[in-house]
């Protein structure tokens, strides 16, 4: 019997596999950030242990940083202390830090790939659930808790039981205005927010193959939103082209050797999956969420599902969720006024996302009732956007281009959505209060978010794209 892509990579990283114990899995690169690492560094100190492989550990500050005036000291004392703590810990333990002001600083899941640290066949972990993003390169990548951060620091390994394998295939041609974000929101609306729990998910099919690396990262990023342990996509020429020439990518002979290995990384034809789901790209509309978990998504022209149609045991939670969002049974959300638009996060803050938004908003202006934030995923994305003049396009449209960080995705740093306000957001979670206490999040693609910014309400992007205009 053949092997899945996931098993090929897992098997190549097993240090020890013993009956009754989780496997000891070798970790190629450990990404760390300011929020989930301080207690782990403390743990090492208490044990008197070093970071075993500091050169395989990469740090950045992203969650708890401002995205405006980054050259000034962080205003909020606790945030400043936490970011300073990362600097001190990295210096003490010999870990490379791409902190504020560094040309490589940015959201951990944006900088790993853009620096060529994330590569096919590797194993990557980080104290952040969206580590699944890196799976887009055909790698095993997942989020871990702080005790495990300490574990990887101390041993460069992780105790982990092998998950089950799921394949999700998407085939066919996407409609105009529909992109990677719509695909993954559509998938999660079908699987529910728990449907992937216990699985490593491989995305396959010609629609997935046709996506750029940025699109593939958007898909894998949200694997955790269906509960999956990780998501991955077999590497191909698109992947290899993306990695080639990046700062830390292999060079010369090493490169040739690496590429030869990467070409063996695919699921064999007769590989067995524990579960297989198939979807048609033609069925996918521009997607939006209406509730308080990412599984609560609908096509933009569809109506909010009726409470009576929901599983009886879940009706109370469902009704609470609609009440929180200020939406009702069978409502069409098209035309609903919104207050904020956030374009950013590890899901959608890469240069391609910014280019797509800029191409659409060029010559247009945001609606008066809306505040728009565009937050690049990294310093490099910001510099690239400026070099291409995208900042000027955004500025004329009333969308200030901010500085890199997680920003309004998680309601932790200064960028928060006020209580009761609606934010159309390109981020990944619409949980209650995720973007600030009592804020209301509507997840969408960068194009749908840009359309809402321009019209001031939930809009079907397809109606604003003229014939021949950009495709998702």
């Amino acid at each position: 019997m053949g092997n899945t892509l996931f098993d090929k990579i897992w098997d190549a990283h097993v240090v020890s596999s013993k009956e009754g114990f989780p496997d000891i899995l070798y970790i190629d690169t450990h990404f760390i950030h300011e929020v989930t690492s301080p207690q782990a560094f403390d743990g090492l100190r208490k044990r008197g242990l070093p970071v075993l492989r500091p050169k395989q550990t990469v740090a950045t500050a992203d969650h708890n940083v401002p995205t405006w005036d980054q050259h000034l000291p962080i205003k909020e004392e606790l945030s400043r202390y936490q970011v300073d703590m990362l600097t001190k810990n990295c210096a003490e333990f010999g870990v490379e830090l791409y902190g504020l002001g560094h040309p490589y600083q940015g959201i951990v899941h944006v900088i790993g790939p853009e620096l060529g640290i994330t590569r096919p066949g590797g194993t990557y972990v980080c104290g952040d659930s969206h580590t699944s993003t890196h799976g887009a390169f055909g790698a095993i990548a997942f989020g871990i808790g702080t005790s495990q951060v300490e574990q990887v620091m101390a041993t460069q390994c992780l105790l982990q039981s092998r998950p089950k394998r799921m394949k999700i295939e998407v085939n066919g041609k996407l409609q105009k205005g529909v992109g990677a974000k719509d695909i993954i929101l559509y998938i999660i609306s079908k699987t529910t927010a728990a449907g992937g729990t216990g699985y490593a998910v491989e995305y396959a099919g010609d629609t997935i193959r046709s996506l750029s690396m940025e699109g593939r990262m958007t898909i894998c990023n949200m694997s955790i939103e269906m509960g999956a342990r990780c998501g991955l996509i077999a590497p191909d020429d698109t992947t290899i082209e993306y990695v080639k020439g990046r700062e830390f990518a292999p060079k010369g002979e090493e490169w040739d050797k690496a590429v030869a290995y990467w070409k063996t990384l695919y699921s064999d034809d007769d590989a067995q999956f524990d579960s297989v789901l198939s979807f048609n790209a033609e069925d996918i509309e521009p997607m939006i969420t209406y509730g308080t978990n990412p599984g609560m998504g609908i096509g933009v022209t569809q109506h909010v599902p009726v409470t009576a149609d929901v599983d009886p045991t879940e009706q109370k939670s469902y009704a609470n969720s609609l009440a929180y969002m200020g939406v009702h049974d069978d409502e069409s959300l098209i035309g609903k006024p919104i207050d904020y638009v956030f374009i950013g996060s590890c899901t959608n803050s890469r240069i391609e996302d910014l280019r797509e938004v800029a191409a659409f908003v060029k010559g247009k202006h945001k609606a008066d009732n809306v505040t728009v934030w565009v937050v690049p995923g990294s310093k490099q994305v910001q510099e690239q956007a400026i070099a291409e003049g995208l900042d000027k396009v955004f500025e004329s449209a009333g969308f200030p281009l901010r500085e890199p960080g997680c920003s309004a995705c998680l309601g932790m740093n200064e960028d928060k959505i006020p209580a009761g306000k609606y934010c159309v957001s390109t981020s990944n979670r619409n949980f209650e209060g995720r973007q600030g206490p009592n804020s209301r999040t509507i997840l969408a693609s960068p194009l749908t978010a840009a359309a809402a910014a321009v019209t001031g309400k939930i809009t079907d992007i397809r109606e604003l794209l003229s014939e021949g205009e950009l495709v998702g």
Partner: protein
Amino acid sequence: MSTKIFKHIQSTAVPLPIENIDTDQIIPARFLKATTREGFGNNLFRDWRFDENDNPKKDFVLNNPTYSGKVLVAGKNFGCGSSREHAAWALSDYGFDAVVSSFFADIFKGNALNNGLLPVQVSDDFLAKIFDELYSDKDAQIEIDLEQQVIRISNTGDEEAFEINPYKKACLINGYDDIDYILSNKALVEEFEAKQ
């Protein structure tokens, strides 16, 4: 280093029959600025527990003096979302030793086990029985026997077996630690690295 030792508990319980409770509800991100593991219990379920002026919300179960105990009983897919271990720390710090649900998110489950907080996964039916019992008798006791892997409703005698990874079970009962285990296999790690 040893972790907290866990064998058996018998306690009253707190019912929270909501599905898909995510870790942002358990501990909102704005409280993740602390650099130690202590004190998160004060902000457990912060935005469900307190209003914008920090006054307790009367209708939330943790503010209802009727219910208390070391066991939290919650709807399915508990702990979904962010990997923040602060969620497990907050539940432990508040005083919970176990969470019972019909389904747990992966990362939360691992984090809980690494902190001596036992996630007990039961069937939908058994979960419904526990809720029924707690609503008919606030003093109903829940017993969890980790060695036997059984959860029991004391009043009715209803019980159900639950699963747990045998290694993690041994860790909880004996206070073993993952890092000690991997370090005891350090030669294998070095051997693996040498082959790369």
